[in-house]
């Protein structure tokens, strides 16, 4: 009998005790194509309570929240709010009952303004016309609650994912709901944005709002939740007071066996240089980037959201075009004008935006994995399904991808999608592998697998660049860390010197005058980025 199981049995509380206040779900079940993905789950959410919902990728967290929010109809079970039956059949039913969901995937209407996106579906009218002053004012208030400076009047098109995530949260808050579900909001947020969200959750809890918070960042969960609820394979494992459960116990509850999550120190890198970047600049975005990555080295990029890390690595990979600078791979100067020339030079990049840039969600996992390599995999100019499947299956085993690779990749869980994306760039071992937010939305188990893969790749002599907004991740993995702010390279720290405090100090330090960005943290630079990438 482990601690976890004991706790689960002692503290388990249900509607049985007669208290019917709050949102009470009993026996929620759901299956897709006959496969059960949710098996009789009970969850009780009291006003003013924060539930941290954890579980592996595909455990059914999003499915649970979609059922509560009326997006998906359950096959079985029932829900009540304060004892009154609650049977939402569409999202608006949920909203009417004071239940709001902040979705895992960001959903915005790019052409509409930020304020309109917040009030979409219930734009207030004054004398028959939309009351723009009111929505702009109110939107600004809600944005400030989540710490966003975004101008409510500008269109959403071109805003960074982080900024969009903030709008998404503001949208939910503006409904003044009694219950809010946050489905992995921090996956797209940096540290400081996350802190804003936590402050907001604390305030909401004070006001008696019931909250479900889903995340794979377990420290975060412990910090914010009162109660931890864990799902595994669609079934409830148990629930615990957050103060009484350790991170290791949470991991164990999720994966169902003993599991130690730790960063082991990387093997020393070689002295050979895999990638050398000199004087890389892109007007208005970043300037003066100089660094080398050795073969076998894991090289981290740290900085706040909007610091320009993504732009730098996109440029190295050929997704964007530099205005100045030189790139060498294995000592040879390479001209990188487009992604193809990057790939040919041996540079592979896993982009941060899985849905928009990484995967074609309508095609199968196998097709996605082999997409860049079909020419290489074909014999006599012909590529067969057999070959595609065989190649994909090899990588599935290597990365422990759970789920079928012969169905549209969009129906895999987020973490498994991320693994498919990684697999895509491992078909042909690259000389330089760039990973931008490699574990966004990935569960602990998968994270470990990905970290191990990254280390293993480095050990075979690949130069690896890891960009991450999770400080623990980037510091735990890397030999050296480059810190950026305001589009400039502030320092390159060795592993020993790269303490969280040192990195944050550099990342937060005042943006120097020579910054290529006019207003660094503001949306403007990102807006420009978008235009640029679209023109490419």
């Amino acid at each position: 009998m482990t601690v976890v199981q004991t706790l689960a049995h002692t503290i388990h509380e249900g509607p049985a005790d007669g208290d019917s206040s709050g949102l009470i779900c009993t026996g929620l079940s759901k299956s897709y194509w006959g496969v059960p993905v949710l098996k009789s789950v009970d969850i009780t959410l009291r006003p003013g309570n924060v539930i941290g919902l954890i579980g592996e990728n595909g455990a059914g967290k999003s499915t649970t929240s979609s059922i509560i929010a009326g997006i998906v109809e359950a096959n079985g079970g029932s829900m009540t709010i304060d004892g009154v039956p609650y049977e939402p059949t569409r999202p608006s039913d949920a909203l009417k009952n004071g239940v709001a969901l902040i979705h895992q995937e960001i959903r915005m209407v790019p052409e509409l303004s930020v304020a309109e996106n917040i009030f979409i579906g219930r734009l207030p009218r004054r004398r028959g016309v939309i009351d723009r002053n009111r929505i702009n004012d109110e939107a600004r208030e809600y944005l400030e609650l989540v710490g966003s400076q975004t101008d409510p009047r500008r269109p959403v098109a071109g805003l960074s994912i982080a900024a969009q995530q903030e709008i998404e949260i503001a949208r939910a808050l503006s409904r003044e709901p009694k219950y809010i579900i946050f489905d992995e909001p921090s996956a797209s947020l940096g540290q400081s944005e996350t802190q804003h969200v936590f402050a907001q959750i604390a305030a909401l809890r004070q006001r008696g709002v019931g909250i479900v918070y889903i995340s794979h960042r377990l420290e975060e969960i412990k910090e914010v939740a009162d109660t931890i609820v864990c799902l595994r394979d669609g079934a409830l494992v148990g629930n615990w007071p957050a103060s009484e459960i350790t991170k290791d116990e949470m991991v164990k509850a999720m994966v169902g066996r003993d599991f130690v999550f730790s960063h082991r120190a990387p093997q020393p890198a070689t002295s050979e240089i895999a990638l050398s970047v000199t004087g890389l600049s892109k007007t208005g975005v970043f300037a003066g980037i100089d660094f080398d990555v050795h073969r076998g080295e894991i090289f981290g990029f740290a900085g706040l959201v909007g610091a320009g890390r993504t732009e730098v690595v996109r440029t190295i990979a050929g997704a964007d075009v530099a205005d100045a600078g030189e790139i060498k791979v294995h000592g040879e100067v390479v001209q990188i004008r487009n992604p193809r020339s990057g790939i040919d030079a041996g540079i592979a990049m896993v982009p941060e935006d899985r849905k928009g840039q990484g995967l074609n969600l309508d095609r199968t996992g196998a097709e996605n994995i082999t997409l860049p390599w079909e020419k290489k995999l074909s014999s006599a100019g012909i590529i067969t399904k057999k070959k595609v499947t065989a190649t994909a299956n090899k990588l599935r085993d290597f990365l422990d991808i759970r789920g079928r690779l012969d169905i549209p990749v969009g129906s895999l869980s987020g973490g498994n999608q991320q693994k498919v994306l990684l697999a895509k760039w491992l078909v042909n071992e690259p000389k330089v592998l760039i990973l931008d937010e490699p574990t966004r939305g990935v569960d602990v188990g998968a994270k470990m697998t990905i970290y191990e893969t990254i280390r293993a790749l480095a050990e075979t002599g690949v130069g690896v660049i890891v960009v991450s907004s999770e400080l623990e991740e980037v510091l735990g993995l890397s030999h050296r860390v480059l810190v950026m702010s305001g589009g400039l390279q502030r320092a390159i720290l060795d592993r020993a010197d790269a303490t969280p405090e040192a990195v944050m100090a550099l990342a937060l330090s005042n943006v120097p005058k020579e910054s290529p960005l006019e207003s660094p943290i503001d949306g403007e630079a990102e807006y420009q980025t978008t235009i640029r990438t679209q023109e490419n």
Partner: protein
Amino acid sequence: MSQIPGPLIGLIVIFVALSFLSPYFLTPRNLLNILSQVSAVGVMSVGALLIILLGGIDLSVGSVLALSSMSMAAMYKMAGWPFEVALLAGLIVGALVGLINGILTAYGKLQPFIATLATMSAAAGLALFITNGNPITGFPDWFIAITATSILGIPIEGVILVAIFAIAAFWLKFRPSGRALYAIGGNEEVARLSGLPVRRAKILVYTIAGLLAAVAGLLVTSRLDSAQPTAGAADLLNVIAVVVIGGASLSGGSGSLLGTFVGLLIIGVLNNGMSLLNVSANLQPVVIGAVIAAAVLTDRKSSRRHT
């Protein structure tokens, strides 16, 4: 909403060039002529923009013009209904076909292209069937006067055109249900999750487009004093072209009525100008093709987002 520099610049260039090339172009009379010349296509293009904003398309617009015009005429001349009633019936016929388009797309989940292709074909056939292809002529004087009278020097059809543009623009910009079209076309899933009545909006918009095609049909009928079963057939591509030249994206979610109006004027001014300049009939399409490409080419920003 979105800036539409390319087409507007294109229009201005064409306008200035024609002013120099033809002494007749820049006369008040001619400019008013242009307004009435574009009125039918213009009225239809408003409906087309609304549908295109939703990410749809309406191929039936020209056939609906013909069918509602023929229905009205048949009810008046053949069934002997009072003219006002027949006129109303003609408008209802147009709206009905639009309603069918809406139901097929919103509930039948047909691709709009297919749904409206089917109704286009059916409406065109019915328009011919009513009189076995014969046109109907002889309408009340006041009805013919609609397109032959001016208010303060501006032809009534021009006034109707501008009024429809203005009302629709107001709706799109200031009314929640109009704004909703951008949301639905931009991201249907978001719209649905935000509780917007997506299907109702589709049905409404297709119905409006059908009604506007019927209005265009009345304008044409009044203008020619003749209801023709094949009227409007040639307008389809023009209507869509006007909207797309005006910067709307066929994938939905972006476009404006101001842009559409500019697109309408580009086509109208070009046709008028080539008439005035006596460009050889067979070269006219070549010039039109080249000018359209050039006018829009200057506007690289309005290029397609992915999809």
